[in-house]
């Protein structure tokens, strides 16, 4: 393969990592830009993948291993692509690298957090616990380097600077502007959970113990706020009964008009999380259509076969607080034609995926559709999209897509197509 221009990949989640690696492993130079201080994106927050119930960290580990040994990929974390201009073959890209206040000398010894007096809400755990103002984004962080949330610091505090024997903390670190020329661009900016507070009937943020599916992942995860114990947030009581509310925001013209395509499998997986810890727990899944295409059908059959799993056709449309921290959900059991009112310990809203770029400062040169996706047909030549930035799909499909998109980007970089 002859040498041509670089490929810019925007977004360091599983799609971006895959695109970058797959392109680089045929010898292409890739610049991978991630907004947060670590790669890994959404999947790094998952406890397990459906349908195999294996940890995403396992696949990430292999990918990070590929990345560590790879001279062709240049990674910019804590960085934002501001602007893409020019044409296929020679795009000009402007990147802003925000300071993390910890440089590459960081060895991960953790002495800084021991002395840090301030705390911040831990976004990695969906705000359910806290970290120090200087923190490691997560245990699998790539690069494995601490960062400082400066606004969370006590004014004038420099205890971490003194505690670091390695000169890794640099409170004077400045924002850098980087300009690059690349041949092609891949947008792999992924998704964020739909803001469930907008679902006025669903009680998220007003009724205790109504959580979203990302919180459920964190609660079930060993690196989460409860070290993987499924306890309800208000009183840390083990969950004995739980309702999953499908299509919380998805397939809804008032919210996300499309199907997010992962939430059914997500909730089925969550049902397994709950039952693994408490086989006696009662699990109710309220759905419109169970969407488990292809081989995933085996998974729904497996979960359905669990004696304590009850799947009900009918959407939950009302959630109110019950007694003693309980939650009351209301839905119609459509096949039996009766309204049901269930009083359970916890409710998980299977919130859909909203493209990350929706409602954000836009990247000049990248075109979104009205839902915030980055469809291929709206982009100029040489700009591609993949994963959930393009359309709502699962991890497996995102990886396929990203592998193919890597080839598309290579074609442009080669000037062949």
């Amino acid at each position, binding site marked *: 393969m002859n040498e041509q221009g670089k490929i810019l990949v925007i977004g360091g989640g599983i799609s971006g990592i895959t695109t970058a690696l797959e392109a680089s492993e045929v010898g292409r130079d890739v610049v991978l830009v991630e907004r947060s201080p670590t790669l890994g994106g959404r999947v790094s927050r998952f406890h397990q993948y459906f349908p195999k119930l294996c940890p995403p960290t396992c696949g990430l580990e292999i990918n990070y291993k590929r990345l560590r040994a790879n001279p062709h990929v240049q990674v910019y974390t804590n960085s934002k692509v501001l602007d893409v201009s020019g044409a296929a073959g020679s795009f000009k890209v402007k990147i802003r690298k925000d300071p993390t206040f910890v440089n590459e000398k960081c060895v991960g010894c953790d002495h800084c957090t021991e002395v840090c007096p301030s705390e911040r809400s831990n976004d990695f755990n969906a705000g359910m616990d806290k970290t120090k103002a200087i923190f490691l984004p997560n245990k699998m962080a790539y690069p494995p380097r601490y960062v400082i949330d400066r606004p969370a610091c006590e004014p004038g505090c420099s205890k971490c600077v003194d505690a670091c024997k390695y000169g890794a903390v640099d409170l004077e670190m400045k924002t850098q502007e980087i300009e690059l020329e690349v041949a092609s661009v891949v947008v792999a900016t992924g998704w964020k959970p739909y803001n469930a507070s907008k679902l006025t*009937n669903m009680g998220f943020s007003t009724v205790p113990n109504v959580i979203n599916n990302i919180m459920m992942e964190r609660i079930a995860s060993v690196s989460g706020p409860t070290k993987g114990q499924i306890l309800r947030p208000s009183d840390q009581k083990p969950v004995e009964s739980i309702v999953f509310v499908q*299509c919380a925001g998805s*397939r*809804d*013209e*008032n*919210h996300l008009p499309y199907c997010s395509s992962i939430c059914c499998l997500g909730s089925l997986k969550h049902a397994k999380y709950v039952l693994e810890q408490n086989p006696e727990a009662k699990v109710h899944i309220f759905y*419109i*259509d169970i969407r488990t295409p292809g081989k995933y059908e085996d998974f729904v059959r497996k979960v359905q076969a669990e004696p304590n799993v009850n799947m009900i056709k*009918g*959407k*939950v*449309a*009302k959630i109110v607080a019950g007694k003693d921290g309980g939650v009351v959900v*209301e*839905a*119609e059991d*459509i096949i039996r*034609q*009766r*309204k049901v*009112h269930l009083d359970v310990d916890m409710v998980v809203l299977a919130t859909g995926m909203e493209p990350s770029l929706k409602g954000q400062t836009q990247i000049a040169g990248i075109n979104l559709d009205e839902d915030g996706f980055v469809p291929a047909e709206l982009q100029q030549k040489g700009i591609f999209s993949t994963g959930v930035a393009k359309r709502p799909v699962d991890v497996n499909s995102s990886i396929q897509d990203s592998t193919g998109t890597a080839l598309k980007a290579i074609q442009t970089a080669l000037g062949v197509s």
Partner: protein
Amino acid sequence: MTGRVTVNADLSFVEGLMQHGGADLKTCYQCSTCTVVCPLTPDELPFPRKEMLSAQWGLRDKLVKNMDLWLCHNCNDCTEQCPRGAKPGDVMAALRSQTIEHFSYPAVISRAAKTLNGNAVLFLIPMVLIAVVITLLNIGDGFAFLSAKPIVYANMLSVSIVDMLFVPAGLFAAFNAYKGLSNFIGGLKAQYPPTDGGESLPAAVRGAVKDVLSHIEFKKCGTNKSRNVAHMLMMYGFIGLFITTNAVMILHYLKEFGFDVQETPLPFFHPVKILANVSALAAFSGIYFIVRERVKNSATSVLSLFDWMFIGNMFLVIMTGILCQVFRVSDQANLAFFTYYIHLVMVFYMVAYASQTKFGHIFYRPAALIYARYSGRNKEIIRDL
């Protein structure tokens, strides 16, 4: 399995519904959000999800005998929350008008009431009829009533002539309503055989009347709470006007027969007059609120012609009634008599076609509410739907 029923999808019925208020009904994907957010539905066999399905399939026979259509008070909580924009509230309204049409006797009138041309004909009848009567009666004296002072509407059309027009119209309407209602109730009985949990008929009537007068169901609405007040104003306004109109008629005939009673038109501070004016104002503000609400919600809830004709008719009845008095008192003869003429036309439309226009809900809804209590709908599970 017993009780397997054959379902025949009725395309033209569906198309009709979509044209008459249920434009988006097909997009419903049966999640039943509507049913859950409905403040009025009972838990067993709840509505309106099942009605949405029947509407999508065009199951006319099942729908026209559906009691739950009338338990719905069009709060539109369902429409607001519907994830598919299917507007169940509108669909229920469209289904109610379908029911009125279905049972209406003669059916031709209610069919007419759903189209512009049909309505033109329906209006033309009283317009011509009343115009002809006025002409015949007054051509002899060269329309002297126009210049007589003070303005007395009876000079144009005497009370007895008015009654000769409106009493038959009322009887016509009553007969039609009777025919329609008895078929409707027959349908309800077939679809919902009374259960042990039902109330006795007098109790059911008492209960239903109490519910209607208190607007207890309207008050449960979430989205359209203000409609409760508007509808109440309008309903009591019309009841008041109904009473005062009849009171005036009675007074008139008492006088005719030599009793010593107040002459009409009544003076301003006569109790009946006060009641009439208060009622008119109440009805007017009611209708004003309703129209304002409808216009405000026009993005989310679309009204059919059937609804607008009804609202428009009500509005004009009240409007012209008030203006008649205003013009009479301010002594503007031409305007006054013309307005009075329009008023009569509007009232005729309202009265004569009462059971075929949306006005017909005043028959069907109470009937369904009574039957719901009588059959035990609100308490017992009815599996035989």
